[in-house]
C-alpha cells in the first residue's frame, strides 16, 4: 500500500518546486520521475523483464527445446525453478524466450505504428485542408473497429510469422500517435517561433524536422510508452488464440494456451506464463504513467 501513498502530493506543487531549483527541462523531468514511487517500481520491473528477455540465451544456453525426459510435468523445484511442461522442457527457459519475443514484437510494433502515424499526422496537422480531411476520415474508419479485429483480420489474410504479426499490430495501432501528432502540429503551426522560422525563409521540411517535431516529442514519447504494454497484450492475445503462429520460438500467450489442458493439476504451466504477461504489461504501464506525469504534469489523470 505504501506505493500508492506516494501519489498524495499535488502535482502542481511538485512542478513549482522543480522549477524553482532551476536546471534543464530533462532534469525537472528526472526529478519528478524520481519522486514517483509507482514509476520507480515500473522501471525496476521493466529492467528485470528486459534482463530476463534479452538474457534468455544466457539463462537457457541449451535453447528452449531441451527436454529433461526424467522430469516431465515436474512441479517447481531447485532444478527447474518454474517446473517443466508436458515434454519435459524447462518452463523458465521457455518463459524467458517468450518474454524476448514479446518485447521484440512490442518494440517493433511501436516502430511500425510511428512510421505510419507520425508522417500522416504531421502532414495532416501541417497542411490542413483537404489533406487533413482525408487523413482524419481514414482515422475515423480505423477507430470504428477495435484493434484486435483489424489485427486478427490482417493475420488471417497475410501469412503468419513474426514479421507479419508486427505489421498487423502496427497497422492496428498507428491511429493513436497519428491523432496526437496531428493535434500537436495543428496548434504548433500557429505559434510564433514557427511563424518566425517561416519568416526567415526556412523550408517546410526543415521547420517540421528542426522546430515542430522536437516540440511534439513529449506526446510521442508518452504514446510509445503507453503503446508498448498494449502491443505486449496484443501479441500475447493473438498467440493465445493461436493466431500468427509458425516459428518454433515459444510465445507467452501460446504457453498459456498449451498449459490450459493441464490446468487442473499442473497449474504451473499456466500461472507462470500468465503471470509473466501480467508483469510485463503492469511494468510498462507504470513506467508509461510515470513518464507521462514527469514529462507533462498537467495531463495527469488521477
Amino acid at each position: 500500500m505504501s506505493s500508492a501513498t506516494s501519489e498524495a502530493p499535488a502535482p502542481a506543487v511538485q512542478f513549482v518546486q522543480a522549477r524553482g531549483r532551476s536546471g534543464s527541462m530533462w532534469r525537472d523531468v528526472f526529478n519528478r520521475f524520481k519522486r514517483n514511487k509507482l514509476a520507480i517500481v515500473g522501471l525496476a520491473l521493466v529492467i528485470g523483464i528486459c534482463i530476463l528477455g534479452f538474457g534468455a540465451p544466457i539463462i537457457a544456453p541449451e535453447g528452449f527445446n531441451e527436454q529433461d525426459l526424467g522430469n516431465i510435468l515436474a512441479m517447481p523445484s531447485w532444478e527447474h525453478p518454474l517446473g517443466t511442461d508436458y515434454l519435459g522442457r524447462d518452463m523458465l527457459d521457455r518463459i524467458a524466450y517468450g518474454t524476448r519475443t514479446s518485447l521484440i514484437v512490442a518494440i517493433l510494433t511501436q516502430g511500425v505504428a510511428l512510421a505510419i502515424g507520425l508522417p500522416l499526422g504531421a502532414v495532416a496537422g501541417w497542411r490542413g485542408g483537404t489533406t487533413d480531411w482525408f487523413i482524419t476520415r481514414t482515422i475515423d474508419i480505423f477507430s470504428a473497429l477495435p484493434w484486435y479485429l483489424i489485427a486478427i483480420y490482417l493475420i488471417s489474410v497475410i501469412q503468419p510469422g513474426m514479421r507479419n504479426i508486427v505489421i498487423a499490430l502496427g497497422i492496428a495501432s498507428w491511429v493513436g500517435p497519428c491523432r496526437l501528432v496531428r493535434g500537436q502540429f495543428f496548434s504548433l503551426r500557429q505559434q510564433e517561433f514557427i511563424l518566425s522560422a517561416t519568416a526567415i525563409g526556412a523550408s517546410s521540411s526543415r521547420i517540421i524536422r528542426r522546430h515542430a517535431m522536437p516540440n511534439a516529442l513529449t506526446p510521442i514519447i508518452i504514446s510509445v510508452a503507453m503503446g508498448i504494454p498494449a502491443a505486449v497484450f496484443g501479441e500475447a492475445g493473438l498467440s493465445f488464440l493461436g493466431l500468427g503462429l509458425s516459428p518454433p520460438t515459444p510465445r507467452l500467450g501460446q504457453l498459456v494456451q498449451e498449459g490450459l489442458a493441464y490446468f487442473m493439476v499442473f497449474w504451473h504451466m499456466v500461472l507462470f506464463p500468465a503471470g509473466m504477461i501480467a508483469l510485463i504489461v503492469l511494468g510498462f504501464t507504470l513506467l508509461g504513467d510515470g513518464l507521462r506525469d514527469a514529462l507533462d504534469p498537467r495531463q495527469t489523470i488521477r
Partner: protein
Amino acid sequence: MLGYIARRLFWILTALLVLSVFTFALAHTVPGGPYSYGEIPLSEAQKAMFRKQYGLDRPLWEQYLTFLRNAVRLDFGVSYQSPRETVVEVISRTWPVSIKIGGIAAFLAITLGLSLGLLAAYNQNTWIDYVVTFLTTLTITTPSFIVAIGMIFLFAVRLHWLPTSGWAGPETWIMPILAMALGASGYVARYTRATALDVMQADYVRTARAKGLTEPLIATRHVLRNALIPLLTIVLPIIPGMMTGTIFVESLFRIPGLGSWFVSSSFKRDYPMILGITMLWAVLISVTYLVTDILYAVVDPRVRLEDVQE
C-alpha cells in the same frame, strides 16, 4: 441539430462503404477460398464447382456489387463454415449470447466504476482513496484473459466452486462476466474520481454548500449530475465493446458468442462471416459515438454540436 445528425449519418454510411471495399478487396486478394481448409484434398473440377456455387468465378467488382446489393437488404450470404446457415442466422444465434454476457458485464462495470470513483473522490487522500487507486491500477493493467485465468485457478481449480469453462447455466456466466467487467470498472472508476474531484471544486458546488444544502443532496444533484457529462464519453463506448463479445474471454471460457465465432471465421477464411461481423461492429461503434455526441449536447446545453464534431 437534425442537419448535424443527417450529416453524421451520411458520413457513417460513407465510412461503411469505404470499409466494405477495403475488407472485401483484402479478403479476396489472398489465395485460397472456402474449400482450402477441408481435410480432404479437392479436385480442380470440385474447386471450380465451389467457386461457381459461391459466385467466386465472377470478376471482383461484380462480386462486390452483388455483395453490396445484398448487404443493403441485410443479406450477407451463406457462412462457409456452416453452409446450412446464412450469416445473419449465425449472427442472430451467437450475438444474443454475447449481448447477455456483455450487457451484464457492462452494467456491472459502470455501476461498480461509478461508485468506486465517487467513493475515492469523497475520501480523497485517505486510505480508502489509496486502496481504490491501487485496485483500479491493477485491474486496468491486467489483461482480461489473465484475470480470467487467475479466477479459474482460484474458483475452479482450487476451490471447485465453479466450472472451468462452458456454457450451461448461470454458474458458467459468473467468471466471464467478472473478467470482462473488472478492467472496464477500473477505467470508469479512475475517470469518475478525476471528474468528481474537478466538479467538487466548482463554484456552484460551493454555492450549494453555502446556501445550506445537505451533503447527500449536493452529491446527487450537483456533483454526480455534472460529473456524468464528461463521463458519458468514457462510459457509453464500453457498452458496444462488451456486447460484441470480448474475443479473448469468449475463447477462454468456450462461450459460443459472436467473438469466438469471429476467431473461427478468421481461421477458416469464412469471408461472408468476416464481412458481416466487421460491418455489424463498425455500425454499432459509429452509432454509439453519434449517440454519445448527441447525448452530450442534450445533457449539457453549453455544448454546441458543431464543436463536438472535430
